[in-house]
């Protein structure tokens, strides 16, 4: 089958498909459609008439004139501007917000603060005595404890040393 024949067959098939669409497109509308739509339109709420004006201000009333509407507009402007002026004239300007109160330094007489720095003593350098310290009268008669006595007075250290000694005892016995 050549391409033109193929195209013809395709067209025929598509036409049979379009026939269905044509049938649907030509279906008659239901009876009373127009009347129902007209009724719906009559009963539909009209836009802009939700808030109805009083008759005097509706088109045709005395309040619909250009002069009356202009006066109403002027009154609205006066009320708004007057309210704004009243607020403006009653409000007192406060102190300037740009002033920043700085905290007073701990020692204002020195002039400069420490700036948060903390003095750390150097543990390697001990304090240097500038003068001779004389012992007091109560401390003068008291003999200084002998280091060996002090060593013997400590039972815990003695025990510890005793253990070492006990471990060394066999060596002594051997001697």
């Amino acid at each position, binding site marked *: 089958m050549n391409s033109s024949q193929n195209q013809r*067959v*395709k*067209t025929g*098939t*598509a036409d*049979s*498909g*379009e026939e*269905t*669409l*044509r*049938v*649907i*497109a*030509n*279906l*008659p*509308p*239901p009876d009373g*459609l*127009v009347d*129902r*739509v*007209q009724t*719906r*339109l009559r009963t*539909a709420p*009209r*836009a802009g008439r939700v808030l109805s004006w009083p008759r005097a201000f509706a*088109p*045709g*009333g*005395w309040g*619909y*004139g*250009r*002069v009356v509407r202009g006066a109403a507009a002027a009154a609205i402007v006066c009320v708004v501007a007057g309210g704004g002026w009243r607020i403006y004239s009653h409000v007192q300007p406060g102190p300037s917000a740009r002033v920043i109160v700085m905290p007073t330094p701990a020692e204002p007489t020195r002039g400069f603060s420490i700036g948060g720095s903390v003095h750390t003593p150097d543990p390697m350098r001990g304090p240097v005595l500038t003068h001779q310290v004389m012992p007091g009268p109560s401390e003068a008669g008291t003999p200084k404890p002998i280091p060996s006595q002090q060593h013997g007075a400590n039972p815990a250290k003695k025990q510890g040393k005793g253990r070492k000694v006990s471990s060394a005892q066999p060596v002594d016995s051997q001697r």
Partner: protein
Amino acid sequence: MSASLHLPWMEIAKTAVHDEARQHAKEEALAALVEQYAPTLYRVAFSVLRNAADAEDAVQEAFLRVLRHRDSLEEVRDHRVWLIRIVWNIVLDRKRRAKTRPETDDVSELARVLPATGLSAEETAAATQHHARVLGMVDKLPPKERQVLVLSAFEELSSVEIAAVLGVTESSVRSRLFRARNLMADLLERPRSVR
């Protein structure tokens, strides 16, 4: 009262009468539009929605929109295309929302509305099945091609008017129609391979 006396409310009253008359004229124009185009709009709506109640709802909504914008009626050049465009947008929107409706509803609705003059019950059922199958294939077409194909079935719409309804150029309507016909032919020849 002297003839020279001229008060502002006299002018106001005249304007009011004029406004009322204009309003009345607009309402009459709208009623005439309903009378003239409601059947066409219904058929356009039904061709997309395939449900009588939905189509009627869409027509009513279209005219309600016209009622809301009745002040701009005078500016419209072609009322028919304008109205079809309104209802077209409404039905596309509704179709998009009501995708969950089962296809069997379409077939039963189709059997109810299709003309069955001179056909036996079996022939009517067969025709309905055929139409339902074709419509199922139309639904498988890409949206742009499908829309052009559906609108082209309306003999009263030219390609220029279809272009105006869809908001595209006439040449693109023609090319889309060509593509849609080819796709439809392919689908009808071998429907199972596409599924």
